[in-house]
């Protein structure tokens, strides 16, 4: 069988930039993503395989990008994002019961950063994103406008918005519109 040319990857938001004086809205780099489901009793073994402690408290994360970041999404659900390694093969080493599903291409992410980042997100997200309840390192699956997203606070004025691929145009356009009145 003839060896064919490697297919190139076309990311849904490639080349888009937006924002305003107080906020930048940019597509995130490609990453490996895994939807991990397991009984939290098995968190220890899975943590060992992944090389970081699976967060067990609601709305928290462990690790950071561009390496490996794990966000708690539910009592038995985590989203792993990794821009450099291969969490799927790491998880294969864990012999405890779990489900690991590759969702690298299901999601895409948008980075929202700058003084007006929080106000930009608050334009579409009814959840409280204030420092007291959503500090750096917090993550939550929530809604933005008319779609579901996962918001991760990666730094004081930096957020990562994960959404499904086909909703990314809406998400990007919505954030661009919100950025106009980011109060910064």
């Amino acid at each position: 069988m003839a060896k064919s040319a490697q297919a190139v990857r076309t990311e849904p938001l490639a080349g888009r930039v937006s924002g305003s004086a107080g906020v930048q809205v940019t597509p995130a780099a490609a990453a490996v993503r895994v939807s991990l489901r397991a009984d939290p009793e098995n968190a220890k073994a899975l943590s060992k395989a992944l090389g970081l402690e699976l967060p067990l408290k609601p709305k928290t994360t462990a690790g950071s990008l561009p390496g490996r970041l794990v966000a708690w999404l539910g009592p038995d659900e985590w989203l792993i994002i990794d821009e450099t390694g291969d969490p799927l093969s790491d998880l294969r080493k864990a012999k405890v019961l779990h489900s690991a599903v590759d969702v690298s291409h299901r999601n895409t992410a948008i980075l929202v950063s700058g003084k007006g980042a929080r106000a930009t997100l608050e334009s579409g997200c009814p959840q409280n994103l204030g420092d007291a309840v959503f500090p750096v390192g917090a993550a939550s699956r929530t809604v933005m406008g008319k779609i579901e997203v996962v918001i991760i606070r990666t730094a004081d004025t930096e957020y990562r918005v994960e959404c499904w691929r086909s909703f990314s145009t809406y998400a990007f356009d919505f954030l661009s519109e919100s950025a106009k009145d980011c109060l910064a």
Partner: protein
Amino acid sequence: MSGTNRIKGKGRLTPARTVRFTFDGKALTAIEGDTLASALIANGIHLTGRSYKYHRPRGMLSAGPEEPNALIDISRDAARRTPNVRATVQEVFDGMRAKSQNRWPSLAFDVGGINNFASPLFAAGFYYKTFMWPKAAWKRVYEPIIRAAAGLGVSPSEPDPDHYANHYVHCDVLVIGGGAAGLTAALAAAHAGAQVILCDEQPETGGAFHHDTDASIDGVPGWEWAQSVTAELRAMSNVKVLSRTTAFGYQAQNHVALVERVTEHLSNPDAALPRERLWQVRAKQVVIATGAIERHMVFANNDRPGIMLASAARTFLNHFGVAVGAKVGVYTACDSAWAAAFDLKQAGVSVPAIVDVRMDPDPALVARARELGIEVLAGQSVLDTSGKLRVKSMKVGRASGGSRRDIAIDALIMSAGWTPSVHMYSQSRGKVVWDEPSQRFLPGRHVQDCASVGACTGVDDLADAIAGAAKAGHAAARAAGAKAGKAWSAPKSATAASWAGSMMGSAGGAGAETSVKAFVDFQNDVTAKDIRLAVREGMHSIEHVKRFTTNGMATDQGKTSNIHGLAIAAEMLGKPLPQVGLTTFRAPYTPVTFGAIVNHSRGSLFDPTRCTPMHGWEDAHGAVFEDVGQWKRAWYYPRPGEDMHQAVNRECRTVRDVAGMFDASTLGKIEVVGPDAAEFLNLMYTNSWDKLEPGRCKYGIMLREDGFIYDDGVVGRIAEDRFHVTTTTGGAPRVMHHMEDYLQTEFPHLRVWLTSTTEQWAVIAIQGPKAREIIAPLVEGIDLSNEAMPHMSVREGRICGVPTRLFRMSFTGETGYEVNVPADYGEAVWKALWARAEPMGACAYGTETMHVLRAEKGYIIVGQDTDGTVTPDDAGLNWAVAKKKPDFVGIRGMKRPDLLAPGRKQLVGLLTRDPNIVLEEGAQVVADPNQSLPMTMIGHVTSSYWSENCGRSIAMGVVAGGRSLKGTTLYVPMPERTIEIEVTDAVFIDKEGVRLNG
């Protein structure tokens, strides 16, 4: 000069800062900070519009948001025009164009004014009584005429060029209202360490201090105190002060909607600014400090331009420096109008008389009036007024009789007392309580985490209001969990003049024995007489009176009229007022623009548009798209000169002769993982999954509990503990939820997890005799031979160097593959496949061709050939129902007697006797075309197409007992002809399935 009625040295505006505007085309000058109302009065204009029903000349009644009368059309340019803007709220900006409404041909001479003379015809309930017959006329004649005549302003016809912003915010304490009480509460809460939002509807805080210049707090005049407190609040990092911001909706769990008018007052607003901001506040505690609204007096012809609330006249004087007239009469039942009279007199305005309905007003007030040279007429009434376009005189005397005299005036100010503004409290689902001593409805128990303070709770004394607000603000902060904070003490002393005294209902000379026009609701033109009529005609509940008369139903929500209306109804009914009840207050408190509510959700943001990874290629190759839910799916690919029919015929032929490529990415996909995955699928589907080996696929049917088909799709077993489930495009989210619901509630013992992978995979279907030849050179690591990879199998390998899950399956009846690749590779792999397919003569095909090809094979589409009342047996799919399984969702439903009864509608093929006739989907099927109407319908057509491959039309449908009717002739009666059809098998091509396994 910014108007002849400005009084030098009065008011808080800076005279040098002038702005120009037009009113009905006339160029006028105002001062920055003027409302349109104050600017018009400064220029001697009281007449601003014609009333709703009788087209009576009207002017400003108030100086605030409660304004029922002065509704103006405001525009900046052709596209930025807003009807029904309250002149008392709209600030004048340079270049503003204002236009009066509801008048033709001109404001001063209005033809519609004839309604005033014909008013006996337009009594309450007029529409209900008059337009009853003939019935047909309602739709064609009455309704269009009424609609054309109704409404005040004309809605704009151009698209709104502005943008709007939305902000969800959370805080410890939200304070609604920036008067003395609200400011105090905010200050107390902020010093107690709480995160505070204070909103106030006016450009500047201060509430009643806009008009009341008698008050002082800790020795400082009230207005100055308010401004310095506001500056203090603005400087605090834990406080957000929002002015020009109205709280208009109090929803559940302290969710309060505010609208901030950002650019409405600016001459050249920065294009980057939103016109309005919607603030959706979620507050731990809410302090309601909404104050009180003055009521007018209800007497004959109380609606002439120049007749207004006393507090309004005082605001125009003390805040805007404008005298509402040169000779101002006063008619009151409340002390506060006296203060207005004194202020006017001291500013040099002539005040000929204060008419007070009370027999013995406060002697101190009387003495002060005498001192200022104002005549006091106690125990008397204003019995009537005169003046066509502006009040000219008032007729004064005792209602009981005796001498009367006309006093010349050019303005008349009035006060029937103050109504606590309980709108927000009532919206929070609190029930108002009647307070007998003060004759007012007041907030009762608060049902949400909120408190009311100040004048809206009926507190009359300023010092009491401040003390109560300080306590409530502090308590709110503590209740919200604020701990930090520094010592702060509330203002120690506060003094203000009395606002005592009130009356409700009609005043002397406008009682039940009269037939004068004494207006209760100015905006809807409801008089005291109308309310009495409603009671006489049997409306005994205030809710009925309200609907019959429309009292309080205009956009001002009866802020000035509700209590009067209620009192008049109660008097007529001979019942105490609280027994008649108060109508419910609903959001919005004041009108809100559609723009603020719709906000971002318009244009492309109205609803998400979902596109597949191959969308760009499809678009570039001329695809016409159809909407499937939120998805855009390629429908067909017309070549130059082809219509849809020709394109679909060509695509159908090409797939069966050569091959076709189809974008199936929108199919729902769920990864089912875990040791109990097969057991879970056994419970969710009618089929049995135990024996399905890894690498094989199966068509599955999913039922609801009631035994009817819910969804279908092909499921591939990837590994012992891993299944790749597909669902219909439209069913993807609900099937996922359906499965998750059962997993969590019915089968929590199963060790299995579900993950949506719909968007992880781009899916390219390659169907047709040359399908294998097209993909073969690009595939690595998979033996594609018929023996190694037969129909209904799945393999993992690589295509174009990227991972793939390759399914051998078919929805066309041809040899077929569905290439699943990670979504970002979809476009590249599609292009690589197309580069092979196109030279072979294959085509790209869309959903229409997919529909035709599957119908040629009799494959159903859930939702088209089924409608939620079709069982597997009805659809001829009994083969897919496992006979030995003890349980699955729908197993009991399927055994219901009516689902087993003979004569159920069954899916069959329907062929027209004339092969060129294509039936209409949805058309009804009958056995005897000659029966009388209404005919007995025994079924209907579910799918119908022209089949180029069959050289004739084909159709499927459901027909009662259909399978036993094969070979018989039935009929489809249509308006123009009756079509003869034959019941057949539903497979029209390759009944043996040779092509499928080729």
